[in-house]
């Protein structure tokens, strides 16, 4: 069984937000909400500044606190691809998972249930890439099976330097940022 992950090259990302728009269109994300977003991080002291632009989303963590805290099992790890998903008609809207996610990746859908990035599982099941990956004009994103050493994501992680977000949270995120 695959273990899906995403690799994003921060040296290529220009923050154009095509991924954000593609996600909103593909997944019918309600107006005023977003499942993915762009973060710009500037570090250092002038003139020695570094800039990193990242497309962020749910990290489909290997150790997801949003799943363990859920009282109904609505938040769960899907067998296919080990992705983290929410079953809307099991969710009571208690918002514990929103508080438990260190990345602020979730929101309450106007219909009342917890919502977030699904890694476009409906597309992946058809053999396609997630909408954000397929639309990126700089091809800065790759999606695939982290457990398959021959997949593009595994090869990128084996050949490049990378980091994850807030690794100290112990969530073991599966979205990796190449630097």
């Amino acid at each position, binding site marked *: 069984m695959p273990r899906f992950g995403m690799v994003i090259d921060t040296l290529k990302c220009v923050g154009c*937000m095509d991924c*954000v728009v593609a996600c909103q269109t593909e997944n019918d994300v309600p107006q*005023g*909400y*977003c499942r993915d*977003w*762009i*973060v*710009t*991080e*500037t*570090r*250092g*002291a002038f003139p020695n*500044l570094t800039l990193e632009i990242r497309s*962020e989303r749910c990290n489909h963590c290997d150790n997801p*606190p949003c799943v*363990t*805290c*859920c*009282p*109904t*099992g*609505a938040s769960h790890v899907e067998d296919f691809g080990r992705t983290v998903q929410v079953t*809307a*008609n*099991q*969710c*009571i*809207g*208690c*918002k*514990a998972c*929103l*508080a*438990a*996610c*260190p990345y*602020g990746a*979730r*929101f*309450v859908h106007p*219909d*009342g*249930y917890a919502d977030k990035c699904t890694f476009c599982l409906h597309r992946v099941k058809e053999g396609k890439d997630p909408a954000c990956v397929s639309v990126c004009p700089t091809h800065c994103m790759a999606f695939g099976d982290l457990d398959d050493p021959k997949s593009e994501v595994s090869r990128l992680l084996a050949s490049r330097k990378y*980091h994850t*977000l*807030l*690794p*100290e*949270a*112990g*969530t073991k995120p599966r979205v990796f940022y190449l*630097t």
Partner: protein
Amino acid sequence: MLEITSTRHNPLVDPVLSVWSWEIPVYLFFGGMIAGMMILAGLNMLRLAKGERAEGFYSVQTPILGFILMNLGMGALFLDLAHKLFVYRVYMAFEPLSPMSWGSWVLLLVYPVILVSALIRLPQAWPWLGERLPVLQRLSDALVASPGKIRLLGGLNVGLGIALGIYTGILLSTMVARPLWNSAILGPLFLFSGLSAAAAMVHLVASLVPGHPAPRSFLGGALAMLVQPLGDRPPEPRTADGLIKADLGFLAIELVLIGLLFIGLLSSSASHVAAVDLLVSGKYATVFWGVVIVAGILVPLALQWLELGHRIPHTVIPAVLVLAGGFALRWVMVGAGQASHMVAAAGF
């Protein structure tokens, strides 16, 4: 320098998490107070089972009030849910790693124990009902006449009370993402705060209409049973003094636990230190210092100390202050805890 900008703008999540408003603090406050009332009542039931007289222990008479408060707390929790129609889903699963799941099942056990506990007093406290449902009187008599049953009920009250009180803290403390809550102290802190609120509540209601026979009318009896001690004489002074002494202990322990919480967080990571700042000098500082610490703990400690020494007359003021402080503690912890977040590590 570290400057972060984000295009994310999700309601209730950005710029700081604010998914829980007044409902969850109300739920946690009532939950903690009911837990405390169960523990006080349970301990006194254990003494009753040994043959002590019931009049001295007003807390044994409070489960009916506890039942009403419990429903108010659960009502607040229900109001908070965003997907209300699916609330039954909580009881279609048991998630062993989810404190909220544990809490929901514990609450399901608490209800029958509170209702059976209420039977000890219900027929006498609400004569209108007692006369129309003689079976209640028979059940009450059977319960009161059996020390074994009272002992079991007392044990269940104490055990479930401790579980419920700690749960109200554990619910928050398991969330690594919210540094202010990352402390095992939060469970005991909410438990002792619940106990002090319970002692204050029992004291408050026992002082409202002391020493009258229970009204025989439907409505008068229904209202009086919530707040009126049984018997036509006011509760013995040892009831009030016992509650004040207990409250002094609970408040002192609460103060120590808040100190330990701060020491633990301040000696932890940058995220935890920043979280403490929210309470000590940030947006929540006024309510924290003014209402939780000074008005809710220090002033009632001093007033009750003077009352015990008979240097000032007994009033309900300390009890009211303790209740206000107990609620403010939940409100501050829920609000500031959500605002606290993990600070991005320097360098990558």
